């Protein structure tokens, strides 16, 4: 089995379910942000809200949601696995979980050599 580039915690899956339910089961997606203030964090939107870039990299899916990142950012984090977790906190930005006082966050860890050789294709 290939190594996944992205995964989610139980808290993340439950929050995704809660957000979907509040939106008549609309499909959701993620885009990893870079830069200032609230950057370097995953942004969650309804599918169609955010236009995914034609060169953006799809890292995989978490709980049925596609997860994308700009290719320039991917260059520097491709040796790390991202696990999407949830923390209490008041992020700003347009990510849809923020009004709940919760924030998705990316927890990174380096792949082992073996995992790195066997990564899922992008």
């Amino acid at each position, binding site marked *: 089995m290939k190594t996944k580039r992205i995964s989610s915690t139980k808290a993340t899956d439950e929050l995704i379910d809660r957000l979907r339910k509040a939106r008549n089961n609309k499909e959701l997606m993620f*885009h*990893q*942000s*870079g*830069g*200032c*203030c*609230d*950057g*370097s*964090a995953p*942004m969650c939107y309804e599918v169609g*809200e*955010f*236009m995914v*870039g034609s060169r953006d990299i799809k890292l995989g899916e978490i709980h049925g949601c596609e997860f994308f990142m*700009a290719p*320039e*950012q991917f260059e*520097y*984090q491709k040796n*790390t696995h991202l696990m999407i977790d949830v*923390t*209490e*906190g*008041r*992020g*700003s*930005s*347009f*990510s*849809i979980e*923020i*009004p709940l*006082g919760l*924030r998705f*966050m*990316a*927890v*990174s*860890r*380096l792949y082992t050599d073996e995992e790195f050789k066997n990564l899922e294709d992008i």
Partner: protein
Amino acid sequence: MSYSKPELKAQYGNYIGGKFVPPVNGKYFDANSPVDNKLLTKIPRSDADDIDMAVKAGYDAFETWGKTSVTERSAVLNKIADAIDANAEKLAIVEVWNNGKPVRETINADLPLLADHFRYFAGVIRGESGTVADLGGDLVSQEVHEPLGVVGQIIAWNFPLLLAAWKVAPAIAAGNCVVLKPAEQTPVSILILMEILADIVPAGVINVVNGFGIEAGKPLATHPGVRKMGFTGETTTGKLIMQYASENIIPVTLELGGKSPNIFMESIMDADDAFFDKAIEGLVLFAFNNGEVCTCPSRALIQESIYDKFIARVLERVKAIKMGDPLDESTMMGAQASNDQYQKILNYIQIGKDEGAEVLTGGGKFDNPVHPDGFYIQPTVFKGHNKMRVFQEEIFGPVLSVTTFKDEDEAMEIANDTIYGLGAGIWTRDVHQLHKFQRGLEAGRIWSNCYHAYPAHASFGGYKLSGIGKETHMMMLNAYRHTKNILTSYDQNKLGFF
């Protein structure tokens, strides 16, 4: 000296049309202070109805404000600056509770700069003018400036008052009316400022609507009455703002952060003098504003030949950074602005360790005995190489990544090897070397033998993924107005085509 907690109302309204009004939907959210993670006040959780009301109030005011003479507009901006000066201490203390930064910075940096930005734009609009060209014969061309109308501005939480001034001052100086949405982590100080300015700014010229991005920010950015969007934040939301702007074909100014290099050449150690002392401080400025600055000098590039001696002196200074109660004037670093920010910074510190970067000092949270529930992190210095994630991704905290270089070419290559280009610093005693870096570095602001100075009359804005457009400097006026061309023929004779 330490300051006590300011008295705030239990809840605030939106500031629309010169009055505080409750949100239409009656919803509020808790604004907690990062200093102690306790409730400060309640803030409107606004939506499209409040935005619509604010845009309308803006246009009601624009009928007059857009035609008000620059003499009068300038006088209002000067009165704003005077009122800020008169209330500086109060605002400085509120800003500490709002954002978590230390009071010695709000008193000595945020507040003086806040007043000065209004005073600067009050001044420059009196001294500039459009142009007239005699195009030959009887044809005269005039380029005149006209305000856009109502503009939308969404700001970040690291300088809640100062970033508001950066955007609001030029916009209203140019004759626009503003709908401002502050960041939801730090909504309080701008409301206290509006209380102070209520009798000075004509009703509807500055409107403040609080709320969350998707609920209040989106209706603002997509409102057909909004003629321009200014945004400070991160890249994904920056792209989203551009996408929204395409709906109504309006311009945007985006300020999206950076990973700024701060380069130290060997000549700085030619003498152990005042300039060398300044260079040490120049490096330690990564901890200014708790590292929560878009232009944080978060990558220090040090020439190999001086590395050992220089880093020893630097670490001495970093270890002397006093943490504690942000309200105490001797405290140098306060709280990070929110819990999620705090968690993210700790995650990055872990990534740095995992990637093999060496921790030279710090490397974890700071247990603050005065405020045990606040969000405090030790100033942290990593040594590693430029391909590591802590060298490439903006952490937005007091985390410095240090690496070394052999010569000028290698320094330039490492400095420019980043997807961002907001700021850069170069420290050297060699003027020829200084010039080479000033022109070779790919960034919008090259601090040369200084860092973290933000005068109003110096332009600020990013190269590469750091954004679009400029802030500060009078050139910013043109980002908030139309240029109308008036072409007048004084010739009595027809063209002859028909």
